[in-house]
């Protein structure tokens, strides 16, 4: 958030996506079909932040969300918040993993745009949103619970089907959004001038 180089429009997009990640964790925000599915949609928000805003803005959006949570706002799904979730909780590593994951997704997405072919995009989203996130999450679970690594890894597998589904949704959403709304990721803008660029910015 240093960045004097971020435009006002960038700031608004960052804040909106941080808010989106928070809103996806609000109770009753999303139910699929008749039953509430006990999976957190916040990882979907994180993947979307990377795939739609790119590495820099996406990273700041996730960071902002995490800072507010650490400061004590109950924004993690289930109304959780506070420093606990960033220090001693078994799931701590996943939250730090989000920061790395969103940057990876954002960087690779910028490379794949403007074409954004499905399978490479899915690979990029899975790499950032699952592989990188688990890379942080699993070892921390192991350490904080005193379990061997493989046990923590087996434990993490319960999130896998949901996370793969979220990666697929992220790619499908990002494809449509980038088509309807070009110029969201700066790298892609240079290759494909946008009609909306410079409208609300500056």
């Amino acid at each position, binding site marked *: 958030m240093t960045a004097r180089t971020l435009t006002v429009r960038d700031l608004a997009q960052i804040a909106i996506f941080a808010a989106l990640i928070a809103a996806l964790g609000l109770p009753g925000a999303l139910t699929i079909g008749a039953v509430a599915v006990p999976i957190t949609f916040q990882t979907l928000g994180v993947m979307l932040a990377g795939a739609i805003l790119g590495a820099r803005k996406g990273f700041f959006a996730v960071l902002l969300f995490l800072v507010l949570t650490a400061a004590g706002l109950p924004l993690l799904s289930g109304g959780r918040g506070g420093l606990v979730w960033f220090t001693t909780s078994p799931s701590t590593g996943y939250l730090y993993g989000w920061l790395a994951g969103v940057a990876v997704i954002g960087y690779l997405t910028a490379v794949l745009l403007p074409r954004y072919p499905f399978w490479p995009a899915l690979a990029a989203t899975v790499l950032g949103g699952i592989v990188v996130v688990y890379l942080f999450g699993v070892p921390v679970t192991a350490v904080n619970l005193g379990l061997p690594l493989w046990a923590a890894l087996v434990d993490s597998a319960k999130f896998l089907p949901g996370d793969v589904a979220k990666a697929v949704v992220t790619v499908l959403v990002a494809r*449509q959004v980038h088509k309807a709304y070009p110029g969201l990721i700066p790298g892609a803008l240079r290759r494909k001038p946008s009609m909306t660029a410079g409208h609300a910015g500056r």
Partner: protein
Amino acid sequence: MIGLYHPGSSIIHRTPTLLKLLLLSVGVTVVGLLGQPWQLLVALGAVFVLYVVAGIPPRPAWQQIGPILWILIIAVPLQALFAGWTTAGMMAGRLVVAVALAALFTLTTTVTAVLEGFQALLHPFRRWIDADRVGLLVALTLRCIPLVAEIVAEVLEARRARGTQGSLLALAVPVVVRSLYAADAIGEALVARGLDD
């Protein structure tokens, strides 16, 4: 910005945020080093006393610490298989104490105070980080949470009105697109209201 803060005027509430943060990290580190069950019991007792001093009723305390216990119900037996019940019990105890300490920090410190504390920690990096902008972004995000929550609710309602069940995709696309339009409009308002780069 109430968050999880539990209002009070105890010495723990009044301790400056950064000092409290320092004490918390010292406390968590010390707890991590405890090797004997009796030491852990002392620590547990001490934390209990701190909660009493802070005047935190059982309910909010439980809301903070409870979720960890659920995880432990699965993790402790699993760990006992590898390392025996004593080690597993010690691990669980250390985790509970550390979690309770971190929760105490959150329960006795307002969100505003924590954010000010974070800003103070950022001070040495002011050449790279514009604290004013960080503060603006934080406030803007707090404003945007109800806005986006409303967008999600409206999209869900529209879906119900059409009687389509629809996929997660049919839900996510309009939410993201409308959020982006809202961001544009807010960006425009920020500029109109005197925020320029």
